[in-house]
């Protein structure tokens, strides 16, 4: 091979991907950026307003509230689902028919369309006819997610945990399966405690898949829309209105395209920033591990 002679034909191979990404992501995003700096009165009348919409959006207290709720929701979801998923994965048998059955069972929530998940929980948690709500009522606990903000939050969190913990379980189980039995044998001969086995053998091996799991849950939970929309519609009041729902209200409900576009860009940058912070923190940590 002659190192000097360049063969540029390889770019042709990358071209389809570039085109797809351009059409599916770059061009729509740029359209939004374009909207965000204009005041659109009608299709023909547009005014350039610079960063006005951004200033307005950032000063919007309802948006700040929604952002606060969003961050709280994402943190709670990750704090519950990651440890719970690891615990369930640790408790699973390592082989056999029971395992296959359980893995299929765990995969089921992941396969259900999101609006159906919302509907299932909407009915499940109802105080009059829902299995969960009615059971709580029967036990003397008054439970009404439609009128009580805390109940709405509990229902939403329970729904998300039910929906997504399986993902963490499956990822963690894959990580655990890659550990050779010899490591457990050695730990037994070293008289290691169960906690030491987790701390020094299992957790280091799980780090990689857990990074993926946290990243996926972080991104998904930050963008959650369908399930709360179906379950609570953002209420009672605004108590479960997250960023995406507030955005939809602005863009479609009030048809404020300019502010909604500015909001979208900020929202996008926020998700990107949080994921980047998390990812670089983990990668840096891995770097010092060596």
């Amino acid at each position, binding site marked *: 091979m002659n190192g000097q002679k360049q063969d540029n034909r390889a770019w042709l191979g990358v071209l389809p991907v570039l085109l797809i990404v351009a059409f599916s992501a770059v061009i729509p995003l740029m359209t939004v950026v374009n909207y965000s700096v204009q005041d659109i009165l009608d299709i023909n009348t547009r005014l350039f307003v610079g960063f006005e919409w951004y200033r307005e959006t950032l000063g919007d207290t309802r948006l700040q509230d929604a952002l606060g709720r969003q961050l709280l929701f994402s943190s709670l979801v990750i704090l519950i689902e990651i440890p719970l998923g690891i615990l369930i994965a640790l408790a699973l048998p390592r082989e056999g028919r029971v395992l296959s059955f359980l893995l299929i069972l765990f995969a089921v929530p992941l396969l259900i369309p999101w609006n159906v998940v919302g509907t299932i929980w909407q009915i499940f948690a109802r105080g009059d006819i829902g299995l969960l709500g009615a059971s709580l009522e029967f036990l003397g606990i008054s439970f009404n997610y439609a009128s009580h903000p805390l109940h709405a939050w509990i229902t939403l969190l329970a729904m998300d945990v039910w929906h997504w913990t399986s993902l963490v379980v499956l990822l963690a189980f894959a990580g655990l399966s890659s550990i*050779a039995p*010899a*490591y457990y*044998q*050695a730990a*037994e*001969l*070293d*008289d*290691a*405690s169960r906690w*030491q086995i987790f701390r*020094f*053998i299992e957790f*280091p*091996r799980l780090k990689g898949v857990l990074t993926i799991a946290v990243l996926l849950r972080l991104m998904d939970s930050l963008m959650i829309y369908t399930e709360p929309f179906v379950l609570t519609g953002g209420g009672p009041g605004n108590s479960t209105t997250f960023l995406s729902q507030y955005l939809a209200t602005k863009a479609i409900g009030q048809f404020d395209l300019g502010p909604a576009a500015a909001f979208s860009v900020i929202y996008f940058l926020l998700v990107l920033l949080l994921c980047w912070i998390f990812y670089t923190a983990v990668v840096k940590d891995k770097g010092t*591990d*060596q």
Partner: protein
Amino acid sequence: MAAITLDQVSFNYPGTTEPVLKNLCLHIEDGTTHALLGASGAGKTTLLNMLSGLLSPSSGALRFGDKNVSTIGARERNVALVFQFPVLYETKSVLDNLMFPLLNRGWVMKEARGRAIEVAEELELADVLHLRPAGLSLYQKQLAAIAKSLVRTDVDLVLLDEPLTAVEPAMKWRLRQRLASFQVEHGLTMIYVTHDQTEALTFASQVSLLSEGRILQTGTPEDIYNHPIDRFVGDFIGSPGMRFIPSARLHSDQPPLGLLFAEPPERDAGTLMGIRAEWLTPQRSADGIWELVSKRLVGTDGGQEKSLLGFRNGDFELLAEGLGNWCKGDRANLRVQRYALLPAEPQTAITS
């Protein structure tokens, strides 16, 4: 350290009737190295798991010294185990890895540290004590894993499960030397499980050959090599294995065999004569009875090429090491320098 005794030990996995280990009897002297040699499926791993305490014998007794340990679990068994590949705690430094089993057993920090450094220095690991396993070569990793298994002073037995398999070929010899000198210096009782006969025959003072859950023969490496107990052992040990001719054939009325002896075996219908390639010298002769049918170059000796030669005479085929320029179709007689006499019938029932 302790002497190890297997007294009529059998094992079958729950729910199966066919035992994996059948009536094993074995005594290993305190402070010696014993190799368990066998092909895969011979029961080596099961026996190893039983010695380490992961499995308990279905019947019979396993004794460390005078103590019956048959039902004592792995944690209390006082056994160290070296695996086929380096098993270390990835997030701990080599020093912390070495100290881990000691601290878990109630050693004081300072003493554990001293002991870990002492073992590391003996195994030439002192320079990498502060590194994590990821920063080590494969050889160093396995050396560290071996050090971790040797760090405890209260173990009765060190088990080695093909510890050289994962190491680069060039380093195998070095690792074996380190291990051997450590064993001698500290008088360790070691059991070395392997399918590699070169490792077994060069490392251990005693070798047991395992096949289908039985011990076929136990002896010194020389014993097993020169005096195999039956045809299976003779064929299994050595590369290539022994070739056999019924002793009775030498004295029958059939045409001469073309084998030249200083001292021929006696006529005995019940024995086989086992011959190894290096025990035969071919003598070229135009009217020789053996015909050269195969040839494989194995090296040079005094400037001449040295080959492994396959000679055929009717139904018999023998291998001989020959010097010089041999060609297929050459004829020769074979001089037998030494031979082993074995029973014609398999002796695998000896242990039961």
